[in-house]
């Protein structure tokens, strides 16, 4: 059960946000063209979300089973550097590895996921979020459930929630609207 006050307290501590791609940045759909090219649909709302977090000094990484060229392109457009595009289905293993090399603790981290394979990480991190059309299991463990469905601005909503909790939202919006 989501408790807004607890979610705000948890969001205050977030220093780094890890995002699942399919079902979060996309609505889970993969498009294949007649000549075998794969494509995915993303939301520009999420670009603002990523840029805002990065601007506020919160790191952003993508974590999915395999990083496609589309994901690389999206990373580039959203300002997420190539070394933070993590392609592995061993998500808990990746979390351990990242904490070891970065020195971040569970409570410094946030994860946005929608599926059973995200549960391991969602239960560990300080602040976890799920989209409103995520799997029931993911929503059951999330500290925050977005109004947006996957692919329609989930990251923007999470970013605003975290940055408002940290009192940084207004300043970041002003900065971004000048530079963009």
């Amino acid at each position, binding site marked *: 059960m989501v408790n807004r006050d607890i979610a705000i307290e948890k969001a205050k501590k977030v220093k780094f946000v890890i995002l699942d791609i*399919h*079902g979060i940045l*996309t609505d*889970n*759909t*993969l*498009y*294949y*063209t*007649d*000549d*075998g090219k*794969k*494509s995915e649909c993303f939301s520009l709302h999420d670009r603002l979300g990523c840029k805002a977090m990065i601007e506020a000094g919160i790191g952003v990484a993508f974590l999915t*089973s395999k990083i496609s060229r589309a994901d690389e392109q999206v990373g580039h457009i959203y300002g997420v550097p190539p070394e933070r595009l993590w392609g*592995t*289905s*061993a*998500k*808990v*293993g990746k979390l351990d590895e990242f904490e070891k090399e970065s020195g971040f603790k569970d409570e410094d981290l946030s994860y946005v996921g929608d*599926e*059973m*394979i*995200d*549960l*391991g*990480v969602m239960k560990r991190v300080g602040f976890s979020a799920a989209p409103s059309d995520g799997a029931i299991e993911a929503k059951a463990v999330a500290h925050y459930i977005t109004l947006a469905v996957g692919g329609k601005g989930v990251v923007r909503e999470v970013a605003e929630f975290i940055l408002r909790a940290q009192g940084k939202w207004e300043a970041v919006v002003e900065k971004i609207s000048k530079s963009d």
Partner: protein
Amino acid sequence: MAFEKNLDKAKEKAKKVKLFVHDVHGVLTPNTFFCDIEGKRRYAFWHMDGFGDLSLTANGIQIAFLDTTSIDEEGLFRARELKLDKFYYKVKDKVAKLEELKKELGIGDENVSYIGCEITDLKVMKMAGFAVATADAIDEVKEIADYITVAPGGRGPIREICEFILRAMGRWEEWVEKVTKMGYK
């Protein structure tokens, strides 16, 4: 029309599955395709259905794509990406193909699960031990199915059945834990 299915019976049937067969259109896709003004076509698949197929193969259950109605090779691209080798393209007689597959794998009808959505699936579904219909399948298909998915075609029915089968076998929790710790391989 609403069809009532016996969940306990479906679970018993799911336990025996050794081969899971699906068509491409209407199951892996929402039975639609996009066509741009230059005639280039595009097909929508569901990311987590790939997880479903890979979960079953990792647990020793074979997957076969039995494709009848493709316009392009869209299903083949998908199967290749998932590294699934049992892809049968533009199959005219699904029943004959399934008989062939059963012989090759040394399994019986009770070991076959099939998910379908159209009248062209009826014959194979009657053969299969565990027959599944998508949420948006036509009524004739739903009527003879042992289980109807909550997800419509192209929105995760394979992911759902994979979980159903592995849960019935008592392997789901263990598998999810394993894959999130160690990955697929």
